[in-house]
Protein backbone atom coordinates (compact mmCIF):
# COMPACT_ATOMS: atom_id res chain seq x y z
CA UNK A 1 0.00 0.00 0.00
CA UNK A 2 1.54 3.21 -1.10
CA UNK A 3 1.15 6.40 0.76
CA UNK A 4 -1.73 8.65 0.03
CA UNK A 5 0.56 11.16 -1.54
CA UNK A 6 1.85 8.69 -4.08
CA UNK A 7 -1.64 7.61 -4.87
CA UNK A 8 -2.74 11.16 -5.42
CA UNK A 9 0.29 11.77 -7.55
CA UNK A 10 -0.48 8.78 -9.72
CA UNK A 11 -4.07 9.87 -10.04
CA UNK A 12 -2.99 13.36 -10.97
CA UNK A 13 -0.72 12.05 -13.69
CA UNK A 14 -3.46 9.84 -15.06
CA UNK A 15 -5.86 12.76 -15.13
CA UNK A 16 -3.36 14.88 -16.95
CA UNK A 17 -2.88 12.14 -19.50
CA UNK A 18 -6.59 11.86 -20.04
CA UNK A 19 -7.03 15.59 -20.36
CA UNK A 20 -4.18 15.68 -22.78
CA UNK A 21 -5.63 12.91 -24.84
CA UNK A 22 -9.10 14.31 -24.84
CA UNK A 23 -8.59 18.01 -25.23
CA UNK A 24 -5.29 18.05 -27.04
CA UNK A 25 -5.75 15.06 -29.23
CA UNK A 26 -9.43 15.81 -29.60
CA UNK A 27 -8.64 19.22 -30.96
CA UNK A 28 -6.08 17.84 -33.31
CA UNK A 29 -8.43 15.21 -34.56
CA UNK A 30 -10.38 18.02 -36.17
CA UNK A 31 -7.40 18.58 -38.32
CA UNK A 32 -7.05 14.87 -38.98
CA UNK A 33 -10.63 14.74 -40.08
CA UNK A 34 -10.30 17.68 -42.36
CA UNK A 35 -7.18 16.27 -43.85
CA UNK A 36 -8.68 12.82 -44.35
CA UNK A 37 -11.83 14.28 -45.79
CA UNK A 38 -9.82 16.46 -48.10
CA UNK A 39 -7.71 13.61 -49.34
CA UNK A 40 -10.74 11.43 -49.88
CA UNK A 41 -12.11 14.24 -52.00
CA UNK A 42 -8.82 14.77 -53.79
CA UNK A 43 -8.00 18.17 -52.35
CA UNK A 44 -5.30 19.26 -49.95
CA UNK A 45 -7.35 20.54 -47.01
CA UNK A 46 -6.00 23.20 -44.62
CA UNK A 47 -2.54 24.17 -45.75
CA UNK A 48 -2.10 27.77 -44.64
CA UNK A 49 -1.69 27.85 -40.89
CA UNK A 50 1.52 26.05 -40.13
CA UNK A 51 3.12 23.24 -42.05
CA UNK A 52 0.25 21.41 -43.82
CA UNK A 53 -2.12 23.33 -41.55
CA UNK A 54 -0.70 21.87 -38.36
CA UNK A 55 -1.58 24.94 -36.33
CA UNK A 56 -5.08 25.17 -37.76
CA UNK A 57 -6.85 23.79 -34.62
CA UNK A 58 -5.13 26.33 -32.45
CA UNK A 59 -6.16 29.13 -34.76
CA UNK A 60 -9.72 27.89 -34.81
CA UNK A 61 -9.80 27.68 -31.05
CA UNK A 62 -8.45 31.19 -30.61
CA UNK A 63 -10.97 32.53 -33.06
CA UNK A 64 -13.87 30.83 -31.29
CA UNK A 65 -12.76 31.98 -27.85
CA UNK A 66 -12.71 35.59 -28.82
CA UNK A 67 -16.22 35.65 -30.27
CA UNK A 68 -19.01 37.58 -28.62
CA UNK A 69 -21.17 35.71 -26.11
CA UNK A 70 -24.61 35.66 -27.68
CA UNK A 71 -27.67 34.20 -26.08
CA UNK A 72 -30.93 33.64 -27.94
CA UNK A 73 -33.81 35.74 -26.71
CA UNK A 74 -36.59 34.01 -24.73
CA UNK A 75 -34.33 31.05 -24.09
CA UNK A 76 -33.46 29.67 -20.71
CA UNK A 77 -29.96 30.85 -19.88
CA UNK A 78 -29.35 28.37 -17.08
CA UNK A 79 -30.35 25.34 -19.11
CA UNK A 80 -28.57 26.72 -22.12
CA UNK A 81 -25.28 26.70 -20.25
CA UNK A 82 -26.03 23.56 -18.32
CA UNK A 83 -26.41 21.71 -21.59
CA UNK A 84 -22.84 22.45 -22.46
CA UNK A 85 -21.57 21.30 -19.09
CA UNK A 86 -23.61 18.14 -19.34
CA UNK A 87 -22.26 17.42 -22.76
CA UNK A 88 -18.64 17.97 -21.89
CA UNK A 89 -18.21 16.41 -18.48
CA UNK A 90 -19.63 12.90 -19.03
CA UNK A 91 -17.99 12.52 -22.39
CA UNK A 92 -14.58 13.03 -20.88
CA UNK A 93 -15.36 11.03 -17.80
CA UNK A 94 -15.81 7.93 -19.92
CA UNK A 95 -12.05 7.85 -20.33
CA UNK A 96 -11.73 7.21 -16.65
CA UNK A 97 -12.56 3.57 -17.24
CA UNK A 98 -10.56 3.05 -20.40
CA UNK A 99 -7.53 0.82 -19.77
CA UNK A 100 -4.65 2.03 -21.89
CA UNK A 101 -2.38 -0.86 -21.17
CA UNK A 102 -1.29 -3.54 -18.73
CA UNK A 103 -0.17 -2.88 -15.20
CA UNK A 104 3.44 -1.75 -14.94
CA UNK A 105 5.86 -0.68 -12.27
CA UNK A 106 7.63 2.65 -12.14
CA UNK A 107 9.94 3.57 -9.25
CA UNK A 108 8.54 0.70 -7.24
CA UNK A 109 4.99 1.91 -7.65
CA UNK A 110 2.52 -0.37 -9.33
CA UNK A 111 0.47 1.59 -11.78
CA UNK A 112 -2.56 0.49 -13.70
CA UNK A 113 -2.97 2.72 -16.69
CA UNK A 114 -6.66 3.19 -15.96
CA UNK A 115 -8.05 5.92 -13.76
CA UNK A 116 -10.80 4.01 -12.00
CA UNK A 117 -10.69 0.27 -12.24
CA UNK A 118 -14.05 -0.67 -10.77
CA UNK A 119 -16.09 -3.81 -11.20
CA UNK A 120 -18.91 -1.98 -12.91
CA UNK A 121 -16.76 -0.06 -15.34
CA UNK A 122 -18.84 -0.92 -18.35
CA UNK A 123 -22.03 0.16 -16.67
CA UNK A 124 -20.35 3.45 -15.92
CA UNK A 125 -19.72 3.90 -19.60
CA UNK A 126 -23.37 3.53 -20.46
CA UNK A 127 -24.52 5.57 -17.52
CA UNK A 128 -22.32 8.42 -18.69
CA UNK A 129 -23.29 7.85 -22.28
CA UNK A 130 -26.93 8.32 -21.39
CA UNK A 131 -26.15 11.71 -19.94
CA UNK A 132 -25.60 13.10 -23.40
CA UNK A 133 -29.32 12.79 -24.02
CA UNK A 134 -29.92 15.37 -21.33
CA UNK A 135 -27.35 17.69 -22.77
CA UNK A 136 -28.83 17.50 -26.21
CA UNK A 137 -32.45 17.73 -25.15
CA UNK A 138 -31.63 20.70 -22.92
CA UNK A 139 -29.64 22.40 -25.63
CA UNK A 140 -32.54 22.13 -28.04
CA UNK A 141 -35.08 23.19 -25.52
CA UNK A 142 -33.17 26.09 -24.00
CA UNK A 143 -32.32 27.61 -27.38
CA UNK A 144 -35.93 28.40 -28.14
CA UNK A 145 -35.48 27.76 -31.82
CA UNK A 146 -37.37 25.28 -33.88
CA UNK A 147 -34.31 24.12 -35.73
CA UNK A 148 -32.56 23.46 -32.50
CA UNK A 149 -35.55 21.73 -31.03
CA UNK A 150 -36.08 19.45 -33.99
CA UNK A 151 -32.41 18.68 -34.20
CA UNK A 152 -32.18 17.85 -30.56
CA UNK A 153 -35.27 15.69 -30.63
CA UNK A 154 -33.91 13.74 -33.55
CA UNK A 155 -30.61 13.28 -31.89
CA UNK A 156 -32.25 12.28 -28.62
CA UNK A 157 -34.44 9.82 -30.49
CA UNK A 158 -31.45 8.25 -32.13
CA UNK A 159 -29.45 8.01 -28.95
CA UNK A 160 -32.42 6.56 -27.16
CA UNK A 161 -32.80 3.88 -29.78
CA UNK A 162 -29.16 2.98 -30.05
CA UNK A 163 -28.60 3.14 -26.34
CA UNK A 164 -30.73 0.02 -26.09
CA UNK A 165 -28.99 -1.63 -28.98
CA UNK A 166 -25.51 -0.94 -27.70
CA UNK A 167 -26.37 -2.15 -24.22
CA UNK A 168 -27.55 -5.47 -25.53
CA UNK A 169 -24.67 -5.72 -27.98
CA UNK A 170 -22.00 -5.54 -25.30
CA UNK A 171 -23.62 -8.28 -23.28
CA UNK A 172 -22.00 -10.90 -25.49
CA UNK A 173 -18.42 -10.01 -24.53
CA UNK A 174 -19.48 -9.57 -20.94
CA UNK A 175 -20.84 -13.10 -20.81
CA UNK A 176 -17.61 -14.42 -22.25
CA UNK A 177 -15.50 -12.42 -19.84
CA UNK A 178 -17.77 -12.81 -16.85
CA UNK A 179 -17.01 -9.35 -15.55
CA UNK A 180 -18.00 -5.78 -16.11
CA UNK A 181 -14.62 -4.32 -15.30
CA UNK A 182 -13.03 -2.99 -18.46
CA UNK A 183 -9.55 -3.91 -17.29
CA UNK A 184 -10.65 -7.42 -16.43
CA UNK A 185 -12.35 -7.87 -19.77
CA UNK A 186 -9.09 -7.25 -21.56
CA UNK A 187 -7.28 -9.49 -19.13
CA UNK A 188 -9.77 -12.25 -19.79
CA UNK A 189 -9.28 -11.94 -23.50
CA UNK A 190 -5.56 -12.32 -23.03
CA UNK A 191 -6.05 -15.28 -20.71
CA UNK A 192 -8.45 -16.96 -23.06
CA UNK A 193 -6.20 -16.17 -26.01
CA UNK A 194 -9.14 -14.82 -27.89
CA UNK A 195 -10.28 -11.48 -29.17
CA UNK A 196 -13.97 -11.47 -28.69
CA UNK A 197 -14.53 -10.16 -32.17
CA UNK A 198 -13.96 -13.70 -33.41
CA UNK A 199 -16.94 -14.96 -31.45
CA UNK A 200 -18.92 -11.77 -31.57
CA UNK A 201 -18.84 -10.49 -35.13
CA UNK A 202 -22.52 -9.57 -35.06
CA UNK A 203 -22.15 -7.73 -31.81
CA UNK A 204 -19.13 -5.90 -33.14
CA UNK A 205 -20.85 -4.73 -36.28
CA UNK A 206 -23.88 -3.63 -34.34
CA UNK A 207 -21.67 -1.89 -31.84
CA UNK A 208 -19.97 0.02 -34.62
CA UNK A 209 -23.27 1.10 -36.07
CA UNK A 210 -24.55 2.15 -32.69
CA UNK A 211 -21.34 4.03 -32.08
CA UNK A 212 -21.81 6.00 -35.28
CA UNK A 213 -25.35 6.78 -34.29
CA UNK A 214 -24.48 7.87 -30.79
CA UNK A 215 -21.72 10.08 -31.98
CA UNK A 216 -23.88 11.54 -34.72
CA UNK A 217 -21.57 10.41 -37.45
CA UNK A 218 -22.55 9.73 -41.04
CA UNK A 219 -24.66 7.87 -42.01
CA UNK A 220 -26.60 8.72 -38.87
CA UNK A 221 -26.06 12.45 -38.66
CA UNK A 222 -29.60 13.41 -39.40
CA UNK A 223 -29.70 15.76 -36.43
CA UNK A 224 -27.29 18.02 -38.23
CA UNK A 225 -28.64 17.71 -41.70
CA UNK A 226 -27.15 21.04 -42.79
CA UNK A 227 -29.51 21.24 -45.69
CA UNK A 228 -32.63 21.31 -43.57
CA UNK A 229 -31.66 22.04 -40.01
CA UNK A 230 -28.60 24.25 -40.45
CA UNK A 231 -26.62 22.60 -37.63
CA UNK A 232 -29.36 21.10 -35.56
CA UNK A 233 -29.35 21.69 -31.85
CA UNK A 234 -26.22 23.85 -31.87
CA UNK A 235 -27.73 26.44 -34.14
CA UNK A 236 -28.15 29.02 -31.40
CA UNK A 237 -24.78 28.43 -29.80
CA UNK A 238 -21.92 30.73 -30.60
CA UNK A 239 -18.24 31.13 -29.92
CA UNK A 240 -16.42 28.45 -27.99
CA UNK A 241 -19.73 26.92 -27.01
CA UNK A 242 -20.38 26.22 -30.62
CA UNK A 243 -16.89 24.82 -30.89
CA UNK A 244 -17.22 22.47 -27.97
CA UNK A 245 -20.35 20.66 -29.04
CA UNK A 246 -18.87 19.14 -32.21
CA UNK A 247 -15.65 18.51 -30.36
CA UNK A 248 -17.46 16.49 -27.79
CA UNK A 249 -19.80 14.80 -30.16
CA UNK A 250 -17.63 14.02 -33.09
CA UNK A 251 -14.27 13.46 -31.55
CA UNK A 252 -14.39 12.79 -27.84
CA UNK A 253 -17.29 10.42 -28.11
CA UNK A 254 -15.98 8.62 -31.10
CA UNK A 255 -12.66 8.25 -29.37
CA UNK A 256 -14.12 6.95 -26.17
CA UNK A 257 -16.50 4.58 -27.85
CA UNK A 258 -13.74 3.33 -30.10
CA UNK A 259 -11.62 2.72 -27.06
CA UNK A 260 -14.40 0.75 -25.47
CA UNK A 261 -14.86 -1.18 -28.68
CA UNK A 262 -11.20 -2.02 -28.63
CA UNK A 263 -11.51 -3.13 -25.06
CA UNK A 264 -14.52 -5.27 -25.69
CA UNK A 265 -13.83 -6.78 -29.05
CA UNK A 266 -10.27 -6.24 -30.05
CA UNK A 267 -8.49 -7.38 -26.97
CA UNK A 268 -7.48 -3.99 -25.66
CA UNK A 269 -3.72 -3.64 -25.56
CA UNK A 270 -3.03 -7.21 -26.70
CA UNK A 271 -1.22 -7.75 -30.02
CA UNK A 272 -2.61 -9.58 -33.01
CA UNK A 273 -4.56 -12.64 -31.99
CA UNK A 274 -4.78 -16.09 -33.48
CA UNK A 275 -7.92 -17.51 -31.97
CA UNK A 276 -7.39 -19.96 -29.09
CA UNK A 277 -3.71 -20.28 -29.90
CA UNK A 278 -2.03 -17.13 -28.82
CA UNK A 279 -0.79 -13.70 -29.78
CA UNK A 280 1.67 -12.58 -32.38
CA UNK A 281 3.44 -9.33 -31.64
CA UNK A 282 5.23 -7.78 -34.63
CA UNK A 283 6.05 -4.79 -32.43
CA UNK A 284 7.99 -6.83 -29.89
CA UNK A 285 10.96 -4.58 -30.31
CA UNK A 286 9.19 -1.80 -28.48
CA UNK A 287 9.40 -3.81 -25.31
CA UNK A 288 7.10 -2.66 -22.51
CA UNK A 289 5.73 0.11 -24.68
CA UNK A 290 4.24 -2.26 -27.22
CA UNK A 291 0.84 -2.77 -25.50
CA UNK A 292 0.26 0.97 -25.38
CA UNK A 293 1.13 1.32 -29.00
CA UNK A 294 -1.17 -1.52 -29.91
CA UNK A 295 -3.98 0.11 -28.05
CA UNK A 296 -3.47 3.47 -29.72
CA UNK A 297 -3.14 1.79 -33.09
CA UNK A 298 -6.40 -0.05 -32.76
CA UNK A 299 -8.26 3.06 -31.62
CA UNK A 300 -6.76 5.05 -34.44
CA UNK A 301 -7.78 2.40 -36.91
CA UNK A 302 -11.35 2.50 -35.74
CA UNK A 303 -11.34 6.27 -35.79
CA UNK A 304 -10.07 6.37 -39.31
CA UNK A 305 -12.68 3.85 -40.27
CA UNK A 306 -15.31 6.18 -38.93
CA UNK A 307 -13.84 9.09 -40.88
CA UNK A 308 -13.75 6.98 -43.98
CA UNK A 309 -17.43 6.19 -43.63
CA UNK A 310 -18.22 9.81 -42.93
CA UNK A 311 -16.95 11.00 -46.22
CA UNK A 312 -18.19 8.07 -48.22
CA UNK A 313 -21.77 7.30 -47.28
CA UNK A 314 -24.96 9.30 -47.75
CA UNK A 315 -27.26 10.17 -44.88
CA UNK A 316 -30.26 8.14 -43.71
CA UNK A 317 -33.67 9.51 -42.86
CA UNK A 318 -34.70 9.66 -39.21
CA UNK A 319 -37.35 6.98 -39.57
CA UNK A 320 -34.90 4.66 -41.29
CA UNK A 321 -32.42 5.16 -38.52
CA UNK A 322 -34.72 4.48 -35.64
CA UNK A 323 -36.56 1.68 -37.34
CA UNK A 324 -33.30 -0.03 -38.20
CA UNK A 325 -32.34 0.11 -34.57
CA UNK A 326 -35.51 -1.45 -33.29
CA UNK A 327 -36.41 -3.79 -36.07
CA UNK A 328 -33.07 -5.09 -37.23
CA UNK A 329 -30.37 -4.49 -34.72
CA UNK A 330 -32.21 -5.15 -31.49
CA UNK A 331 -33.53 -8.57 -32.60
CA UNK A 332 -30.05 -9.36 -33.84
CA UNK A 333 -28.58 -8.55 -30.46
CA UNK A 334 -31.09 -10.87 -28.86
CA UNK A 335 -30.08 -13.64 -31.19
CA UNK A 336 -26.47 -12.88 -30.50
CA UNK A 337 -27.07 -12.98 -26.78
CA UNK A 338 -28.67 -16.41 -26.88
CA UNK A 339 -25.99 -17.75 -29.20
CA UNK A 340 -23.30 -16.39 -26.96
CA UNK A 341 -24.91 -18.00 -23.96
CA UNK A 342 -24.82 -21.31 -25.81
CA UNK A 343 -21.22 -21.14 -26.95
CA UNK A 344 -19.85 -19.39 -23.91
CA UNK A 345 -18.73 -22.60 -22.13
CA UNK A 346 -16.18 -23.13 -24.92
CA UNK A 347 -14.07 -20.22 -23.81
CA UNK A 348 -14.37 -20.61 -20.07
CA UNK A 349 -12.39 -23.79 -19.65
Amino acid at each position, binding site marked *: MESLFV*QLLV*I*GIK*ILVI*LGVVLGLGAYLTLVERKVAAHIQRRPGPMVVGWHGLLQPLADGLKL*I*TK*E*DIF*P*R*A*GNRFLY*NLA*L*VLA*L*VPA*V*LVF*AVVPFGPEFEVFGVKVKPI*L*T*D*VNVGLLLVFALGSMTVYAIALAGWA*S*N*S*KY*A*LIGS*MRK*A*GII*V*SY*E*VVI*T*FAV*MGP*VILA*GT*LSTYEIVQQQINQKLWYIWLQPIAFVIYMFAMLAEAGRVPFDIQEAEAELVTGFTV*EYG*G*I*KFGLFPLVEWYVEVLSLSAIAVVLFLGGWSPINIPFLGFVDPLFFLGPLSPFVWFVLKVALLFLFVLWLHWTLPRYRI*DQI*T*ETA*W*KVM*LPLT*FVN*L*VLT*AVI*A*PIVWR
Partner: protein
Amino acid sequence: MDYLGFLILAFVMLGIALLMVFLNYLLGPKAPSALKDYPYECGVPLYDKSAQATFHQGYYLLGLLLLLFDIEAAFLFPWTVVYRYLGVFGFVEMFLFIFILTYGLLYAWRKGALDWQFEEEYID
Protein backbone atom coordinates in the same frame (compact mmCIF):
# COMPACT_ATOMS: atom_id res chain seq x y z
CA MET B 1 -11.52 4.78 -2.71
CA ASP B 2 -11.85 3.29 -6.15
CA TYR B 3 -13.74 6.27 -7.30
CA LEU B 4 -11.37 8.93 -6.00
CA GLY B 5 -9.76 9.47 -9.35
CA PHE B 6 -13.11 9.53 -11.01
CA LEU B 7 -14.34 12.20 -8.62
CA ILE B 8 -11.30 14.36 -9.08
CA LEU B 9 -11.57 14.09 -12.82
CA ALA B 10 -15.24 14.95 -12.61
CA PHE B 11 -14.50 18.11 -10.66
CA VAL B 12 -11.66 19.08 -12.94
CA MET B 13 -13.89 18.65 -15.94
CA LEU B 14 -16.63 20.60 -14.27
CA GLY B 15 -14.22 23.42 -13.76
CA ILE B 16 -13.09 23.29 -17.37
CA ALA B 17 -16.67 23.20 -18.60
CA LEU B 18 -17.65 26.20 -16.51
CA LEU B 19 -14.59 28.00 -17.74
CA MET B 20 -15.63 27.30 -21.28
CA VAL B 21 -19.08 28.63 -20.59
CA PHE B 22 -17.73 31.95 -19.43
CA LEU B 23 -14.75 32.14 -21.77
CA ASN B 24 -16.57 34.04 -24.48
CA TYR B 25 -18.01 36.39 -21.91
CA LEU B 26 -14.55 37.09 -20.58
CA LEU B 27 -12.63 37.37 -23.78
CA GLY B 28 -15.11 38.23 -26.48
CA PRO B 29 -16.23 41.69 -27.54
CA LYS B 30 -19.42 43.06 -26.08
CA ALA B 31 -21.46 44.82 -28.72
CA PRO B 32 -25.08 43.87 -28.25
CA SER B 33 -27.55 44.74 -30.95
CA ALA B 34 -31.23 44.12 -31.37
CA LEU B 35 -30.99 41.34 -33.91
CA LYS B 36 -28.03 39.41 -32.59
CA ASP B 37 -30.07 37.42 -30.13
CA TYR B 38 -32.85 36.84 -32.62
CA PRO B 39 -33.53 33.11 -33.02
CA TYR B 40 -32.50 31.71 -36.35
CA GLU B 41 -35.44 31.51 -38.73
CA CYS B 42 -33.91 31.58 -42.21
CA GLY B 43 -34.19 35.34 -42.28
CA VAL B 44 -37.96 35.58 -42.05
CA PRO B 45 -39.76 36.98 -38.97
CA LEU B 46 -40.49 34.54 -36.18
CA TYR B 47 -43.72 32.61 -36.60
CA ASP B 48 -44.08 31.58 -32.95
CA LYS B 49 -42.70 33.48 -30.01
CA SER B 50 -41.91 30.24 -28.25
CA ALA B 51 -40.50 27.20 -29.96
CA GLN B 52 -40.89 25.10 -26.86
CA ALA B 53 -44.03 23.45 -28.14
CA THR B 54 -44.99 19.84 -27.75
CA PHE B 55 -43.35 17.59 -30.27
CA HIS B 56 -44.05 14.61 -32.40
CA GLN B 57 -45.52 11.71 -30.44
CA GLY B 58 -43.06 9.33 -31.97
CA TYR B 59 -40.46 10.70 -29.59
CA TYR B 60 -42.62 9.89 -26.61
CA LEU B 61 -42.94 6.35 -27.84
CA LEU B 62 -39.21 6.09 -28.30
CA GLY B 63 -38.80 7.31 -24.77
CA LEU B 64 -41.19 4.67 -23.51
CA LEU B 65 -39.38 1.95 -25.38
CA LEU B 66 -36.02 3.05 -24.07
CA LEU B 67 -37.36 3.09 -20.56
CA LEU B 68 -38.58 -0.47 -20.80
CA PHE B 69 -35.75 -2.07 -22.69
CA ASP B 70 -33.01 -0.33 -20.82
CA ILE B 71 -34.45 -1.57 -17.58
CA GLU B 72 -34.56 -5.08 -18.91
CA ALA B 73 -30.90 -4.67 -19.74
CA ALA B 74 -30.32 -3.70 -16.14
CA PHE B 75 -31.69 -7.10 -15.20
CA LEU B 76 -29.55 -8.91 -17.69
CA PHE B 77 -26.22 -7.41 -16.68
CA PRO B 78 -26.00 -9.13 -13.30
CA TRP B 79 -26.91 -12.32 -15.02
CA THR B 80 -24.20 -11.96 -17.64
CA VAL B 81 -21.58 -11.63 -14.93
CA VAL B 82 -22.56 -14.72 -12.98
CA TYR B 83 -23.82 -16.78 -15.88
CA ARG B 84 -20.89 -19.16 -15.74
CA TYR B 85 -21.84 -20.27 -12.23
CA LEU B 86 -25.49 -20.79 -12.97
CA GLY B 87 -25.26 -23.57 -15.49
CA VAL B 88 -28.26 -24.87 -17.35
CA PHE B 89 -30.63 -23.34 -14.87
CA GLY B 90 -29.26 -19.91 -15.62
CA PHE B 91 -29.52 -20.52 -19.30
CA VAL B 92 -33.15 -21.54 -19.10
CA GLU B 93 -34.04 -18.57 -16.96
CA MET B 94 -32.26 -16.21 -19.27
CA PHE B 95 -33.80 -17.80 -22.27
CA LEU B 96 -37.25 -17.24 -20.83
CA PHE B 97 -36.35 -13.67 -20.04
CA ILE B 98 -35.07 -12.95 -23.51
CA PHE B 99 -38.04 -14.76 -24.95
CA ILE B 100 -40.42 -12.51 -23.10
CA LEU B 101 -38.35 -9.52 -24.08
CA THR B 102 -38.50 -10.51 -27.70
CA TYR B 103 -42.20 -10.91 -27.30
CA GLY B 104 -42.43 -7.42 -25.99
CA LEU B 105 -40.44 -6.15 -28.93
CA LEU B 106 -42.66 -8.04 -31.33
CA TYR B 107 -45.65 -6.56 -29.62
CA ALA B 108 -44.36 -3.03 -29.97
CA TRP B 109 -43.51 -3.79 -33.58
CA ARG B 110 -46.88 -5.24 -34.37
CA LYS B 111 -48.75 -2.43 -32.69
CA GLY B 112 -46.81 0.03 -34.77
CA ALA B 113 -44.86 1.62 -31.97
CA LEU B 114 -41.67 1.13 -33.94
CA ASP B 115 -42.98 2.80 -37.04
CA TRP B 116 -42.18 6.44 -37.28
CA GLN B 117 -45.59 7.28 -38.76
CA PHE B 118 -47.75 4.99 -36.71
CA GLU B 119 -51.41 4.46 -37.21
CA GLU B 120 -53.59 6.67 -35.10
CA GLU B 121 -55.98 4.10 -33.74
CA TYR B 122 -53.51 2.45 -31.43
CA ILE B 123 -53.12 5.42 -29.22
CA ASP B 124 -56.45 6.11 -27.68
